[in-house]
């Protein structure tokens, strides 16, 4: 949740109130030193935890990635960038599995993100109409998101069980095929993972997009309708451009969330059939914390990070260029 609720909007008055309260001059001399000391006393409790569990591990991870690091052995031989080279050398121990898992993550991102954007957008447009019970609908749509990935996954693992599950039973009652291998064969496993993820998180993007829709000025719609634009033209020419800044945020957060998919595969398909739905995070966690290949695993996590950062930057560029 923290990951997806980042970037809270800054209130418009922020810059005005940000000025120091007394006089607005820069602190100088002994007074300034005392002020700085006070500030760091306030910051200290957070900074201690932050340095130990965020700043240090980020650097420590890079250090680990330069070694063959088995936590059960005392000796961790330094190997330089070998772990990174291995990831780009076909035929190395990690090459095949790592890129297979990256491919699985890629499939999930490509298959899930369009639905995670389109369906919440549609729902947000519906909720933005003058309807009764809007808050109740909004609450219902958001509810699955407050459940953890574990609850959602064990629930759907049961509902989608190929032999015993309710979904296949209902399909059978409707005269449809009742032996769909939802969790044990591709492409069904992907369809299930995407569908479950949409079911679980659609409320999140819906409420963010709804807030964006409410921010679009009514005058624009009025002007468009005076020009004779029909509902669809209004949607493409007013709604979508008006949503652009919010959309950029939602696309970025959704891309990152999908690229970090772990729990659904872990609990529903166990990465199967074979290792086809084993995502990058699943492979990295397994290599590092189960197979004790911590050097290789941290190297992988940095490669994944670099790729995600590149994709995010590209996404920002594209969205910005579209605005021009």
């Amino acid at each position, binding site marked *: 949740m923290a990951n997806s609720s980042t970037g809270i909007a800054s209130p418009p008055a922020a810059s005005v109130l940000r000025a120091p309260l007394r006089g607005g001059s820069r602190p100088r001399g002994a007074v300034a030193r005392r002020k700085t000391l006070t500030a760091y006393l306030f910051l200290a409790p957070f900074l201690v935890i932050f340095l130990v569990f965020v700043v240090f591990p980020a650097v420590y*991870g890079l250090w680990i990635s330069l070694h063959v690091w088995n936590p059960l052995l005392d000796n961790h031989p330094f190997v330089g960038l070998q772990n990174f080279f291995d990831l780009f050398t076909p035929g190395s121990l990690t090459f095949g599995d790592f890129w297979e898992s990256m491919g699985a993550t890629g499939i999930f991102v490509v298959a899930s993100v369009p639905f995670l954007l389109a369906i919440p957008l549609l729902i947000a447009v519906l909720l933005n109409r003058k309807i009764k019970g809007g808050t109740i609908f909004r609450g219902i749509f958001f509810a*699955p998101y407050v459940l953890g990935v574990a609850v959602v996954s064990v629930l759907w693992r049961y509902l989608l069980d190929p032999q015993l599950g309710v979904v296949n039973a209902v399909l059978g009652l409707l005269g449809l095929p009742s032996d769909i291998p939802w969790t044990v064969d591709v492409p069904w496993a992907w369809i299930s993972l995407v569908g479950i993820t949409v079911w679980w998180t659609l409320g999140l993007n819906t409420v963010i997009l709804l807030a964006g829709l409410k921010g679009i000025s009514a005058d624009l719609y009025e002007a468009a309708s005076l020009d004779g634009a029909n509902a669809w033209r209004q949607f493409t020419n007013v709604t979508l451009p008006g949503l652009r800044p919010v959309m950029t945020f939602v696309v970025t957060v959704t891309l990152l969330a999908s690229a970090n998919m772990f*729990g659904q595969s872990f609990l529903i398909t166990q990465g199967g059939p074979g290792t086809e739905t084993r995502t990058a995070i699943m492979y990295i966690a397994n290599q590092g914390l189960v197979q004790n290949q911590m050097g290789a695993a941290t190297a992988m996590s940095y490669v994944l990070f670099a790729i995600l950062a590149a994709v995010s930057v590209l996404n920002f560029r594209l969205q910005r260029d579209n605005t021009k």
Partner: protein
Amino acid sequence: MSALTADRAARVDRPTRRRRRAPNVLTYVALFLISFIIVVPLLWMLLTSFKTDYDAISSPASPLPNPFTTEAYTTLAEGNLPILRWLANSVIAATGQTLIIMITASAAAYALARLEFRGKKIVFGAIVATLLVPGVIFLIPNYLIVDNLGWLDTLWAIIVPGSAGAFGVFFLRQFFISLPGEIEEAARIDGAGDFRIFWQIILPLSRPALATLAVLSFLTNWNDFIWPIYVLLSPENLTLQPGLSVLQGTYSTHFGIVMAGAVIASVPVLILFTLAQKQIVESVASSGVKG
């Protein structure tokens, strides 16, 4: 948040003839259909938890338990897997982490929002930058750090590292900055120090933001999955989320029991959500709206 409210207020004065399209029957049909798709699986989970093993997998499945039984819950309570212990662990961990976040993040946010000091930009920049780093980067190094601290397989591992998240500081700083400065100034003239201003003025004025952060922090910790499944090892030390994974492995076809576990893990957060729906939804909604 306030940008949103202002916007909403502004719209009230304006004629909204064209702004919000009048709903037709199809709108309601669609909304009810989606609600149905959301609610039915959750209801099914609840109903299945009151079924016998046989009833849970019988076909054609009947929605209502027949017979109605609390067998799954008694099996869980009396079985080898200490689910009540997991529940307690989850409550302790989520509450503990929330408390740490409230204290550390509010103090840090006060300094960043209200005090002038050397290095402010660097500290704030470093905190914000980590918002963008994916969690997997910290997974293995933090595992080793927690191991070195002797926290592996203890609740400390679930409570402390996660409270270092930048979100709380960022969130509260935004709120503190938006508070008017007059009361604070008056207090300063009366000789109040920074700590008194923080404790007696800023914090009381920030109750809504603090409550929202508390709820979000609790939910985040409660629902975390990847970290606890690797750092908690012995059955009695688990929290509910890794516990569900164990339940699913142990009772793979005893769906009534697995669903009872899922219900136990869901009820506290669903109650919290019902009570704080407005705050949760609005704080999330405003996350995408930028000035």
